[in-house]
């Protein structure tokens, strides 16, 4: 395959990180990784490939649609977004003046997702976790650059545990954090406060 020397533009550019997009990103990356035997380091998963639909031999999906009975006897990877946190301000009001003279606004964020590797056997779960965390760790720098994040890093691989939602399955949680900053300008043509009147505010509290 020829080397790609074009500037890679992230599809996130137009929208920026949003909860559903980041979850979809993790799900898509993992589905692509587990869809091709040539990608997979651990031989046990080379014949349990991901395919779209119910016939997949490894279930990879968002935690909001997953239910324990969907896993059945196959391994599964469940992706769940954790809380996001506004991390720091550049100035007290998060503002600065742009080169064009507009007041620019900025916020720095930190988010994280946990990828739960689930399987009916403990050893299989550990192997699935290894395949998953190695993929995320090794390609993390590419994802960080491509998606224009400040940071993208594997930070935690939890202990092998039993799954509370289905005690016949084991689970290893893998957490990835990422940081980014959002900047925007407000070019006011009309005051957004023009319709805010005291009579409207106090109407809620008026006796009938």
């Amino acid at each position, binding site marked *: 395959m020829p080397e790609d020397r074009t500037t890679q533009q992230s599809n996130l550019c137009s929208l920026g990180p949003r909860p559903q997009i980041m979850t979809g990103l993790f799900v898509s990356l993992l589905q692509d990784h587990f869809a091709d035997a040539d990608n997979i380091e651990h031989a046990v998963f080379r014949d349990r490939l991901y395919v779209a639909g119910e016939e997949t031999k490894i279930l990879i999906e968002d935690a909001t649609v997953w239910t324990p009975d969907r896993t059945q006897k196959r391994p599964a990877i469940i992706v769940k977004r954790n809380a996001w946190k506004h991390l720091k301000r550049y100035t007290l009001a998060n503002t600065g003046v742009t080169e064009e003279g507009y007041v620019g606004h900025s916020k*720095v964020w930190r988010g994280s997702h946990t990828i739960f590797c689930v399987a009916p056997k403990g050893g299989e779960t550990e192997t699935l976790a290894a395949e998953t965390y190695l993929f995320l760790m090794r390609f993390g720098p590419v994802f960080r650059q491509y998606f224009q994040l400040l940071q993208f*890093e594997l930070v935690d691989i939890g202990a092998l*545990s039993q799954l509370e939602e289905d005690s016949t399955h084991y689970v290893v949680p893998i957490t990835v954090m990422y*940081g980014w900053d959002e900047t925007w300008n407000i070019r006011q043509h009309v005051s957004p406060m023009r319709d805010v009147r005291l009579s409207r505010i106090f109407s809620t509290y008026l006796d009938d």
Partner: protein
Amino acid sequence: MAETDTKKPSTKNPFLEMISIKKWKPDPETMDSVDQTLKRATPGGDAEPDQWSKDYTKSR
């Protein structure tokens, strides 16, 4: 029949913790550590309001 014979064996592995996907939260110490790293590594310094107020007062 002895009473213990009628009990069903536990399905919980005595050597492993139980994790709930529903209740699970990332380790706060780990997240605090990455927060500090990200704060230090981004430009502008850590302009927390308290520190900003102190610096502002001092400068006057």
